[in-house]
């Protein structure tokens, strides 16, 4: 594969501060006292990347909660748009006001985290009472004003039974897409490994969500950050292989089409691999970091993968989640224990619908 064109997108956290206290936040310290970069520095960085990387097309803005730096966020959105870059926002949706909508208009998507189908579950995970109701209120506001809204659910062992109820809620709200992923052993997530989902249950949920992706395609788009979805999603797999061949590397894509910059300008392979600092946008040559970083070059070579990921015929299209491998085994190339392949030829009762106690919504 040729990586000289640079990443397709860059994930930028403009702050680590947040008004919520999520139990699984990838940033361990909320309301950090470290000095965040002025937005001007991020603008310079985006500018530089758009010159040196012909492939660079999209910026994902995250945090922390990006709306904590509201005016600067708006400035960055406007700047990316001016540079002809697509721009999406990851938010908890609790700080959005009617007055902000105009400034958010250039966004190609707003991704809102909802981790349960009711306030009890969501607020327990997000650490602040009222966050579910506020998020729902603002999702309605965004949908009403024609924003492209994606709801993303993180699956734990105590909320997975609400996933299909939440999907129903999203359909009713008119949300454009629904996205899922499992809780990762990174940041604060490392300390709550006991809440991780059983891989077998995750497999069943994933299988059902992929079935629903096609059944509900006219109502809601079902997408996921899960690299191993390609193992279960034969249509997606066949489409990629028939159009682009088998040499395409995708799935887990840090170093392939993505890298991440935190609020202090430090560069990492992805948001969940913050143990691997590659450089800093103020001090280092970004093109050199992208092209010559040993970690990125090692991640690009799927021959480095071990265990079931190493022997998998789909390692090019999937690659497993490297952050999970590192979080659980302290080896970035170890196998991802959430691989669905080990369950595929076994008799497991297929769930039709898991119903949660949140029926009152």
């Amino acid at each position, binding site marked *: *594969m*040729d990586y000289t*064109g640079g990443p*397709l*997108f860059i*994930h930028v956290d403009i702050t680590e501060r947040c008004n919520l206290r999520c139990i699984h936040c990838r940033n361990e310290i909320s309301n950090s006292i470290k000095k965040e970069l002025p937005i001007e520095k991020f603008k310079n960085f985006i500018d530089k990347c758009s010159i040196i990387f012909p*492939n660079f097309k*999209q910026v*994902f803005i995250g945090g922390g909660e990006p709306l904590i730096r509201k005016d600067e966020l708006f400035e960055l959105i406007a700047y990316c748009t001016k540079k002809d870059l*697509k721009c*999406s926002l*990851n938010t908890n949706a609790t700080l959005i006001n009617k007055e902000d909508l105009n400034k958010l208009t250039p966004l*190609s*998507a*707003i*991704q809102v985290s909802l981790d349960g189908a009711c306030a009890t579950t969501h607020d327990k995970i997000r650490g602040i009472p009222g966050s579910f109701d506020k998020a729902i209120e603002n999702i309605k506001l965004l949908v009403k004003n024609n924003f*492209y809204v*994606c709801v*993303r659910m993180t699956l734990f062992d105590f909320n997975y039974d609400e996933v299909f109820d939440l999907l129903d809620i999203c359909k009713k709200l008119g949300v*454009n*897409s629904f*996205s899922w992923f499992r809780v990762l052993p990174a940041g604060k997530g490392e300390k709550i490994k006991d809440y991780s989902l059983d891989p077998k249950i995750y497999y069943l949920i994933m299988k059902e969500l992929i079935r629903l992706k096609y059944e509900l395609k006219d109502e809601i*788009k*079902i*997408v*996921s*950050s*899960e*690299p191993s*979805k*390609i193992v279960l999603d034969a249509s*997606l797999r066949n*489409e*990629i292989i028939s*159009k*682009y*061949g088998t*040499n*395409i590397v*995708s*799935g*887990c*894509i*840090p170093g392939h*089409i*993505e890298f991440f910059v935190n609020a202090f300008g430090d560069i990492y392979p*992805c948001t969940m691999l913050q143990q691997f600092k590659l450089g800093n946008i103020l001090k280092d040559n970004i093109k050199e970091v992208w092209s010559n970083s040993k970690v990125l070059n090692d991640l690009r070579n799927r021959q480095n993968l071990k265990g079931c990921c190493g022997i998998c015929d789909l390692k090019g*299209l999937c690659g497993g*989640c490297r952050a999970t491998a590192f979080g659980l085994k302290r080896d970035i190339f170890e196998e991802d224990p959430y691989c669905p392949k080990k369950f595929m030829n076994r008799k497991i009762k297929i769930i039709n619908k898991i119903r949660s106690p949140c029926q009152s919504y």
Partner: protein
Amino acid sequence: MEEKESTKERRVLENYMNSSIAFENACISCGSPGD
């Protein structure tokens, strides 16, 4: 003249990266039209 293997590979990669499917099978996803 036959296209060089490296040029062909780059072209396929470019096409892939310009496609919505590249986003769909990436470990990010909001499923937006921008993807």
